């Protein structure tokens, strides 16, 4: 379980998180919604200890992320897969090496046969051809880079998957493909996922629960029905903007 309690963070004068309380239960997929620049990615980075809060607690599997030693934090990170917004693939390495780096167990990382098998499995799971393994990130399209980023995140067989805007910058068709992939992986791997997005439609397709972050706080966390039924001004404004010209998915 992931639990954030009263998390506060400011960068200089700008208050980004102002007492965030947020819970993700085992096995569920939660979409963290919010307009651009509201601190969704910052919140996600707190969970994996890439950013430290000014106040509040972040608990993952009962461990307080900010009180962990370096070694404990490294061990925790091996249980979490993080999918970066633009893939964050290593330019100087081919796709095979990028995904191999996701193998967090050093003995497995040095086992060449296992690495090859695991990399090909991960590529298959994200619907990419084995031949992609030999390509460099610069040779991939935006959608393929996102999928390789997901393949790297699942290579170490994590318990949690954190997606940072997995569909941003993609056309609607590719965005749907990534959304389906997220859903498929959640079902196949049984992981607990948090997906940061500002794409409400995608979030409705993928997530079990939703949470809206605005002005540094979680305005509403609940099911799709609760969101649609909410008369909170910020929730309504956010939903209406996205569903303006499109039908709300069933």
């Amino acid at each position: 379980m992931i639990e954030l309690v009263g998390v506060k963070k400011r960068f200089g004068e700008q208050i980004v998180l102002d007492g965030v309380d947020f819970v993700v239960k085992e096995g569920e997929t939660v979409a963290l919604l919010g307009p651009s620049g509201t601190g969704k990615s910052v919140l996600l980075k707190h969970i994996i200890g890439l950013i430290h809060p000014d106040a509040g607690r972040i608990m993952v599997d009962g461990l307080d992320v900010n009180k962990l030693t370096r070694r404990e934090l490294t061990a925790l990170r091996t249980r979490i897969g993080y999918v970066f917004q633009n893939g964050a693939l290593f330019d100087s390495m081919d796709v095979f090496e990028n995904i191999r780096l996701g193998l967090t167990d050093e003995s497995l990382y040095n086992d060449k046969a296992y690495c090859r098998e695991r990399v090909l499995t991960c590529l298959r799971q994200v619907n990419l051809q084995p031949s992609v393994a030999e390509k460099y990130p610069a040779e991939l399209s935006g959608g393929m880079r996102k999928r390789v980023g997901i393949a790297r995140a699942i290579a170490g067989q994590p318990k949690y998957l954190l997606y940072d805007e997995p569909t941003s910058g993609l056309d609607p068709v590719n965005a749907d493909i990534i959304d389906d992939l997220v859903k498929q992986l959640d079902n196949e791997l049984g992981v607990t996922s948090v997906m940061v997005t500002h794409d409400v439609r995608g979030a409705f397709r993928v997530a079990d629960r939703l949470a809206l972050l605005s002005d540094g706080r979680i305005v509403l966390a609940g099911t799709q029905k609760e969101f649609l039924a909410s008369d909170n001004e910020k929730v309504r404004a956010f939903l209406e903007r996205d569903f303006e010209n499109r039908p709300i998915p069933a």
Partner: protein
Amino acid sequence: MNLLLRPLRLVGRLILEGLAHLGRFSMMVLEMVRGLPEWRIWLPRTFTESYNIGVGSLLIVVVISGFAGAVTAFQAGYQWQSSLPIYVVGTLIVSTIVLELGPVLIGLVLSGRIGARYAAELGTMRVTEQIDALESLGRSPASHLIIPRVIAGFLMVPILTIVADLIAVGVGWWSVKQVLPMTDADFTYGAQIYWRPFDGYYSVIKAFFFGGAIALISCYMGFNTKQGAEGVGRSTTAAVVASSVTLLIINALLARILLN
């Protein structure tokens, strides 16, 4: 009152920024020390980095040291007076190149070439979240990125300086014969008569410190890059300027400490 406070604020801010840099730099060095036991990770990457900066810089080192040797010889020829024994020109060329020109000139050139490369590489990795990605995978950026570059800097700058010294002396030897009535025997006699083995060590010691400074400062600048492409440009410029200035400071300090 405001006019009085403004300079004070500026000084205060500069002091705070300086201390913040010092703190972050110390943290980076601490991370490097912590990463040293992970030699399986940094050792192969050190070979790659050493090859990249060593072989990659060879051509520019050869060209610059060659011209430096030639110019030193031509100027020695211009300043030489017939009242002095001609072999003194050999002494002058070798000492000038080995003690000062070789290491400093090559250091300054490499602070541009290696410094800009390291800062731009790491800066780009920072702003494209590649460094965050490494950390998220439970891997140490120090072992993967910084240690190999710093060790390569410490190793390769002295090697390139030795190459530069040899080429500059060789070209200087050939060049001085074009402008003065000097024989090979005159040159070798002059080169050897005041030669002390320490002069060679001094050249390499200087280059070792220059290499370390260039690599550490550039890695630090790149690693702490902020704000996209503009930030990468800023940290690349800062890396070259800071490593060049530091190199000149180290040069003066080493001359004071080791030559007196």
